[in-house]
């Protein structure tokens, strides 16, 4: 097991390295002068030159990349050019909100997909199956930001059950916090529930046609036990991996949904940083999210290996 963990972690290293290179290149090519962002349009050429030198902007590309790598290896993402704050501070403020939104919507998506996918597979070709597959299909076709606006019109404007915008921390007021987060989380969760339902359905159908299910039935196990112990358990493993893969889309979706509901999360931070040309912030946000995504997938692979011993031995995972 330790061996597998080590191998999987080592595989993540080149990917993380490439990610830093991509992030660095993206920011390197951003037009506009970082020194001018700091000093303002009216700065004299001499002061700009001095600032460029201080920020290391006059060094050649590979040296700048090396310096930056050294800096982030020490856990320093730099300072925002616009706010007098470190990038970590800004991310630290915004990230919990995005995490809250992501986890809440994941919960909603699983709460929809688990029963929907299960029932659709067990009652294949029935009306339940039709409803579940149609739901899955509509879920991935509805643009999330539009669904969010429609829900706001119904529950915010007409029924006035929820506020139209704003964020309340759950540590201040749990009820009010849930009220502000339920619509964004549902919006995001609907989108994710589509693919999750489809995966669970087809993975259960596949498991149901396996011989060990036949054996379980043949030895006289109650149908409930066959489903819970044999079919569902074996179908949940690929389901968990799919959740990991979909997390990237979930975070991407969160960027847009935060905008609809005016939540001050990571997406909001990134979008406003583009407007301000605050590139250490863009760099920091993209890097932290991508690195987090790689780590989550490693954790999921390891979990997967704990659940299914076949993965640890044998073929080097691709």
């Amino acid at each position, binding site marked *: 097991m330790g061996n597998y963990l080590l191998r999987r972690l080592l595989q993540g290293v*080149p*990917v993380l390295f*490439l*990610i830093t290179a*991509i*992030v660095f290149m*993206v*920011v390197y*090519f*951003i*037009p506009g002068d970082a020194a001018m962002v700091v000093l303002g349009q009216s700065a004299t050429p001499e002061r700009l030159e001095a600032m460029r030198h201080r920020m290391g902007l006059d060094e050649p590309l590979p040296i700048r990349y090396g310096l930056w790598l050294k800096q982030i290896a020490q856990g320093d993402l730099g300072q925002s050019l616009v706010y007098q704050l470190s990038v970590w501070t800004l991310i630290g403020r915004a990230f919990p909100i995005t995490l809250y939104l992501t986890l809440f919507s994941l919960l909603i998506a699983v709460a929809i997909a688990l029963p929907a996918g299960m029932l659709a597979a067990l009652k294949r070709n029935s009306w339940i199956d039709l409803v579940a597959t149609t739901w899955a*299909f*509509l879920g*991935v*076709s*509805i*643009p*999330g*930001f*539009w*669904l969010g*606006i*429609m829900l*706001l*019109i119904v529950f*915010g*404007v007409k029924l006035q059950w929820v506020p*139209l915008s704003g964020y309340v921390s759950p540590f201040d007021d749990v009820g009010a916090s849930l009220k502000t987060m339920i619509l964004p989380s549902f919006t995001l969760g609907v989108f994710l529930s589509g693919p999750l339902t489809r995966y669970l359905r*087809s993975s259960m*159908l596949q498991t149901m*046609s396996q*011989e060990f299910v*036949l*054996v379980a039935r043949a030895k006289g196990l109650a149908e409930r036990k066959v489903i819970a112990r044999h079919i569902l358990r074996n179908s949940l493993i690929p389901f968990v991996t799919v959740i990991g893969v979909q997390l*990237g*889309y*979930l*975070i*991407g*979706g969160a*960027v*847009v949904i935060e*905008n*609809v509901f005016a939540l001050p999360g990571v*997406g909001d931070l*990134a*979008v406003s*940083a*583009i407007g301000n*040309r605050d*590139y250490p912030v*863009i760099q920091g*946000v*993209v890097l932290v*999210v*991508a*690195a987090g*995504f*790689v780590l989550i997938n490693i954790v999921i692979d390891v979990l997967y290996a704990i659940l299914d011993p076949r993965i640890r031995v044998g073929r080097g995972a*691709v």
Partner: protein
Amino acid sequence: MATTLEPVEQTGLLDATARLRRPRRTLVARMLAGAVTWKTFTLGLLLIGVFLLCVVFAPVVAPYDPAKPNFKALLQQPSGGHLFGTDDKGRDIFSRVVYGTRVSFKIAVVSVGLATLVGLPLGLFAGFYGGLIDATISRLVDAFFAFPPILMAIAILAIKGPGEQSAIIAIGLIAIPEFARVSRSAMIAEKENEYVLAARSIGASVPRIIFRGILPNTLGPVVVLISLGFAFAILNETALSFLGLGAQPPTPSWGADLAQARRYIRDAPWLSIFPGLAIFFLVLSLNLTGDGLRDLMDPRRNRR
């Protein structure tokens, strides 16, 4: 053969009983499933056709100039004169939705084209050669997969600055990994065939084997990928425009118009309904077509 009973291998017996237990689908059931597939596929194509008509004949279909303000008709509700109502500058929403197809189609077609032109050869070569080339390309694709698509697009838009052209590049780039991955696995499945060996043995060049021999045989998954890629591109394009990073006003654009409409959800909620419905129906029709194609091309899949 002797009449003595051979000990039946356990798996063989199970295999046989499993086959007995699993009822064969009757001819009628199979035809029905096929008809459903055909129906969704045709419905999808028909809807796409309607949108294409709007793209080509926008000036004929739209009753008003989509960009011309009319200060005598601000924020009007849907009526006979203005089917979908008017926006805060008195512009006709229906005309803007019709013209909005043009921007969305343009961005989607060019970005999917870009993703195909770059991603497809990358994946085909990786799958064909294997080894170090495959490992390098695959790791690169892995790294790109680590970026949530919209976030990657935002980072790219930060370089290029907001606008249509930047949106095309951003959406195309974030689709490349998927194209490379699918074509790579299609290639790996296909290259073991004997005709490839035959082509090699008569001395055909590698590009010839890949593009003339193997590519036509892997078109199934590629065509499906392209049609689903369109759906993905439209969703991303409208999302980026909604964030103010895509097509810029006053160009009629569904995403940008929705961002404007978001300000009037109290006083004029109808502004938000129609551009979103347009996106929904277009994405739905692309998904229907893509899924239908996949089922039609792969008889083994019979409507999973």
